[in-house]
């Protein structure tokens, strides 16, 4: 039975989930949920995802929800309420735990020992708590709001870029000790950074967050050069609903 991912393929959280599925060599179906049409506010959807956010996945009879930015439609007042949700990290932990370690070239995305796993968890928390809160306002103000015809707060975005530069100084030090954030292998700790950072550097003109950080740059080239990530981007750009490895 094929995993179903409910969400919008351009959004960060579904991309994390899709990337993990592709890394694990798993097929999936993408069921579009249109944030703009506020489809996810329908009562049936709310029953499944009580916080009213998209997307969720079904894996056989089992459902997990992941979050996405949800944003009041632009016809409301200028104060836009938005929240970033990150249960995509719960989904990728579930997928990596259930389907990882089967050999056949699929990576060990959660580390191999208790100690390695702890480092993966630590850097996943760093992404969620120290990194993403700054990546989000950059993307939200410079990309998402303008796409919806609303003015973004350019000062907030600029301030957030400065914070990203500051946080990445810590990453630069860490990456002088290990090839990837949690050790010498690519793990979920690296994966969860990719979708939002891609928007920051490629769509928001903020590639300067990498300036002077040779190891972060090398790490970024490496993780975005992974075949699985390239397949996710091709899939998103194709507009297809079904992915097979």
């Amino acid at each position, binding site marked *: 039975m094929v995993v179903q991912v409910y969400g919008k393929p351009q959004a960060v959280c579904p991309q994390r989930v899709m990337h993990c599925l592709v890394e694990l060599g798993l097929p999936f179906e993408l069921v579009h949920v249109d944030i703009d049409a506020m489809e996810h506010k329908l009562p049936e959807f709310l029953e499944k995802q*009580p*916080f009213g956010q998209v997307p969720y996945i079904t894996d056989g009879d*089992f459902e*997990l*929800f992941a*979050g996405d930015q949800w944003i009041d439609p632009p016809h409301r007042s200028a104060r836009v309420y938005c*929240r*970033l*949700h*990150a*249960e995509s*990290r*719960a*989904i990728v*932990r*579930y997928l990596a*735990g*259930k389907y990882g370690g089967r050999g056949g070239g699929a990576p060990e995305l959660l580390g191999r020992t*208790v*100690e390695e*796993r*702890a*480092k993966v*968890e*630590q850097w*996943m*928390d*760093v992404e*969620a*708590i*120290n990194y993403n809160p700054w990546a989000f306002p950059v993307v939200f103000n410079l990309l998402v709001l303008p796409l919806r015809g609303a003015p973004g707060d350019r000062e907030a975005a600029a301030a957030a870029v400065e914070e990203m530069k500051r946080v990445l100084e*810590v990453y630069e*030090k*860490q990456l002088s000790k290990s090839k990837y954030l949690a050790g010498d292998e690519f793990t979920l700790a690296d994966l969860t950074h990719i979708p939002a950072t891609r928007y920051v550097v490629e769509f928001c003109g903020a590639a300067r967050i990498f300036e002077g950080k040779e190891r972060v740059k090398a790490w970024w080239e490496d993780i975005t050069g992974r075949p699985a990530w390239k397949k996710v981007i091709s899939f998103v750009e194709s507009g297809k609903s079904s992915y097979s490895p």
Partner: protein
Amino acid sequence: MGGIKIYGMPTSTNTIRALAALNEKGLDYELVIVDLRTGAHKHPNFLALNPFGQIPVLEDGDVVLFESRAINRYIATKYAEAGPDLLLSGGTPAERAAVEIWLEVESQQFGPPIASLVFEALIKPMLVKATADEAIVEAQAAKLEKVLDVYEARLAQNKYLAGEHFTLVDLNHIPYTNYLLKTSKAALVTSRPHLLAWWKDVSARPAWVKTAAGIPF
């Protein structure tokens, strides 16, 4: 070698989160004071442990970890055999996935508003002697209300947040909830019967009673 060390301070909610997990597991540890008021967290010796300059940090033999939630996962995994099965290692994939979801919900939905509210309403006045900004308290309380409505519905169907068993999910919520109940916004919990019943249950656990005894507030 030596035993487990936690670097932090006894009033810090995130430090308390890690101590609560150690106490549930019945583990001995040493609390090494890193007092934020003295700037100890910016000292190079401490930055060598956590380059983000935040408490707590755990040292367990050669393992050095920061981020209290990652620390708690490590404690729950490494010492799975001691005390309660906090990550349901003996459970089904569905049960473990419920733990994963609600661990994230604590981190991403519950955590941010309650941390801001508690800081403004309790920590700032007590430790920094500044007056609480009521506008911030009200705004964060409004966000937290929506989240706690979901929790109330969840706890009407489940004894604990991840299901039928006490897990790391419940534990991770305890320190901030404890502080919330000391603020003017305690009614956020006390007005919700299932949430209140859950609180009474989890806060009566001997390990939490022991942890709470160490909090100077």
